[in-house]
């Protein structure tokens, strides 16, 4: 079984939100504040009853409700009062393995749906108190003291998190951890990887340890002493160990890594260990989801690489939901698994071709997410192109860098078409700045899916339509007059470029040779120059668009 769909209503930033999940791996990508963590939090909440590391019963507050809804409710009270808002989170199972949760009590009105609904809602038992409260007026916040929390299957059967046959394991790097004592999540994870009989053995060993302690002669002696001193009461006073609950061991045992208590180990290492434990193959019936929040935090590149490898090798039987900012993580685990969160809406990459997935998987360094997350991207071939485009942008926009306006200039080498395939899925504005390399027909062929009849509204191919020619040869082959450098020379004079580069070539061909062999150097000089540079029209076109 797996989570097929989650519907979130009135929880934090989500008013009405629906996300479909794959059976195995899912990667949620989105800008800061896009609501990535809220999705993970919501899933963890409904499966465990825990939010921000604490039981949800103690954590109900107005702040976990959607702000707009709360505002609407409060302001409605002075006019026509709305009913107190409720948080609803529905989980739909995939796999047809949970007939007991099959029923029509779901917001899809689907008779075949299997799942359950988590609700934080007004408890009708308090109707009288609530009525009094409303009549008094002066309600400034949600009356959460009259709220209740319920889990109900689609078959209208009340359940507890214990009876949900699907566990969640939330691995995040945030700080709301109990600083003292055991890590709640870690002990959950370790417990999850044990068989019931193992857990019983631990509990029994713990009990024996306690008995040994109480019966130790020195403790007995001390207890006698205490009793002699305490004369004002005739009750027996004794030092003992808390009998506690059946899971007392969870609170008094500490997990160690190389003899260091777990919470003293670095955050990055904690993340790796937790993930590995969570992924470990474990006993029969316990299916579950692993929620991994921004694994790139606290991890070096090579450690991240190991973690990702561990994930992609072992996730097979588990459902995984990873939130990330890192292109590396996304590329490596597969762009096909990416769920892009934009403005609380969802975009997927399911229609990418196999080769493109594999390409980005192998060459995972590409900044695919930069393109995915920006407002507009300009794709170019090399570093020198990028520098010139940045310069051009600044000249046109009062010295602002494109990134300051949410525009990314991305060097993609020869992989334009791979990036364009992604661009087609996401609908972000993408301009391609490319050389014509002296063969306009080849360019037209290469980009045929994006020009003329097939032009896409959000994709623009910018190329110089003029094919320049000349006699210069480099070695035995012809010099390419149709790259950025010769085009720059065409727009600006020999003198001006000599001045900018600090060179002193008498002939244009010599400068051409110099520029060809020092592309990045020249690009930097142009970028840093205080002079106004004339920019070829096809580049300006990409910027103005």
């Amino acid at each position, binding site marked *: 079984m797996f989570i097929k769909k989650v519907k979130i209503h009135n929880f934090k930033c989500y008013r009405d939100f629906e996300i479909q999940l794959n059976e195995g791996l899912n990667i949620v990508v989105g800008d800061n504040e896009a609501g990535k963590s809220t999705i993970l939090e919501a899933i963890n909440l409904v499966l465990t009853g825990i939010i921000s590391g604490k039981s949800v019963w103690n954590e109900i507050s107005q702040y976990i409700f959607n702000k707009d809804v709360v505002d609407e409710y409060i302001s409605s009270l002075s006019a026509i009062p709305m009913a107190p808002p409720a948080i609803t989170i529905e989980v739909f199972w995939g796999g047809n393995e949970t*007939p007991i949760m*099959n*029923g*029509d009590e779901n917001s899809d009105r689907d*008779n075949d749906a299997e799942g359950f609904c988590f609700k934080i809602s007004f408890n009708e038992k308090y109707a009288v108190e609530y009525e009094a409260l409303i009549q008094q007026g002066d309600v400034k916040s949600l009356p959460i003291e009259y709220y209740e929390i319920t889990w109900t299957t689609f*078959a209208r059967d009340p359940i507890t998190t214990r009876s949900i046959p699907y566990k969640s394991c939330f691995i995040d790097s945030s700080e709301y951890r109990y600083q003292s004592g055991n890590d709640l999540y870690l002990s959950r994870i370790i417990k999850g990887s044990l068989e019931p009989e193992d857990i019983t053995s631990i509990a029994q060993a713990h009990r024996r340890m306690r008995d040994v302690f109480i019966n130790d002669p020195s403790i007995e002696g001390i207890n006698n002493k205490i009793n002699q001193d305490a004369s004002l009461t005739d009750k027996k006073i004794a030092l003992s160990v808390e009998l506690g609950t059946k899971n007392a061991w969870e609170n008094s045992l500490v997990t160690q890594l190389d003899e260091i208590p777990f919470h003293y180990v670095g955050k990055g290492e904690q993340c790796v260990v937790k993930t590995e434990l969570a992924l470990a193959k474990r006993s029969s019936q316990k299916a579950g989801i692993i929620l991994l929040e921004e694994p790139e935090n606290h991890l070096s590149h090579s450690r991240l690489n190991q973690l990702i490898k561990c994930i992609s090798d072992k996730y097979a039987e588990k459902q995984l939901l990873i939130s990330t900012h890192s292109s590396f993580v996304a590329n490596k685990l597969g762009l096909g698994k990416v769920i892009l969160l934009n403005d609380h809406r969802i975009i997927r990459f399911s229609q990418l071709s196999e080769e493109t997935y594999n390409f980005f998987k192998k060459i995972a360094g590409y900044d695919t997410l930069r393109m995915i997350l920006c407002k507009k991207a300009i794709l170019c071939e090399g570093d020198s192109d990028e520098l010139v485009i940045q310069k051009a942008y600044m000249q046109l926009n009062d010295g602002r860098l494109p990134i300051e306006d949410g525009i990314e200039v991305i060097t993609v080498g020869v992989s334009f078409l791979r990036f364009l395939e992604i661009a087609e899925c996401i609908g972000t504005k993408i301009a391609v700045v490319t050389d014509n390399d002296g063969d306009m027909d080849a360019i037209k062929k290469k980009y045929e899916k994006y020009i003329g009849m097939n032009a896409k509204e959000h994709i623009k191919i910018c190329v110089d339509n003029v094919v320049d020619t000349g006699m210069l040869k480099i070695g035995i082959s012809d010099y390419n007059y149709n790259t950025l450098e010769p085009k720059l020379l065409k727009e600006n004079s020999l003198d001006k470029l000599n001045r900018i580069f600090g060179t002193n070539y008498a002939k244009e061909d010599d400068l051409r040779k110099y520029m060809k062999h020092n592309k990045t150097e020249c690009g930097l000089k142009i970028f840093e120059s205080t002079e106004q540079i004339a920019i070829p029209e096809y580049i300006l076109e990409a910027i103005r668009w």
Partner: protein
Amino acid sequence: MVNRLIIAAAGSGKTTYLVRQALQQSDSVLITTFTIANETEIRNKFLELNGCVPHNVTIQTWYSFLLQHGVRPFQGVVLKDKINGMILVNEKSGKKYDGKYGPVYYSEEEYKEFYFTDGMKMYSDKIAKFVCRCENETNGRVSKRISRIYSKIYIDEVQDLAGYDLDIIKSLLQTDSDVTMVGDPRQVTYHTHNEAKYKQYADGKIEEFIRAKCKKTNCKIDKETLNDSYRNNQSICSYSSCLYKEYDETGTKQFHVTGHDGIFLVRPKDIDLYLKEYKPMQLREKRTVTVNNEYPVINMGESKGLTYDRVLIYPTKSMKSWMEDQAKELKPRTRSQLYVAITRARYSVGIVFDYDEKTIIEGAKKYR
């Protein structure tokens, strides 16, 4: 689907058999029965034989099963409101008002009043009808869902199901689950059903229903497996079998001899003496029957499922006339009551009956 209806004689170890069967299953098992008393007995039998109820076994009363799996999953076809459980009714529910010619009831179109109390509790006599409605309006999803949850379904005391219950049984028989029904048509002691539906199959005519209406479900009818009594000795078995000649005579596996074994007529004037000598459990039709209150007593209707070494029955008038002439008409309910009363005892059944030297009652001896 392997479906079976097992006709069980009184004291044949029905519960033990059922629990043993269930313990052999590794799939998920549902055991459902009509009364809470019998549900408890099944639970206790599990404790006795296995120490606990295995995790793959669910035991529920018929009503609780219907509410959870019949009503709630697809109640949306009728209404969305929360249903707050059910209320047991002993007569037709949903009375609108008392009319000139008797009570007037809500029609099914007024579904809230028809099915529910003001507090949204469902009337027990309407649950099965509601379930059938859900089943029909969801194209059989109710039974399909149940079948996906439980691959083995055991229905105990099946003779107590009637009316729309029978349609539910029919639906279950058509699913992939293996359904085993066990019951004794001779022990229909009461009905909370006043449903006009399937009137012809009331009073324990479950076998006839299966034969007539469930031909395609391939349900086998087994009258051998549970036809021997571990409780009653041979004379008790023989005498009780006289009440239902259409069934084979019950055999016995109880051979203990006590010196006072079989059926005995006890004159009213000998009652105290008899009670003193043998300490039988007194069985009466209802509270208004005079008994010796110094000795324990129980109503026949409540004795179902219980076992005593000896009983003393205070028969009704019609029971007495049946004893005198077994060809005499006896109402199904009374016949069943007498059958239950007789089959409570291991060794001896005393029947209060005034006799003289000339009296001859077939199958019974005289106490003095």
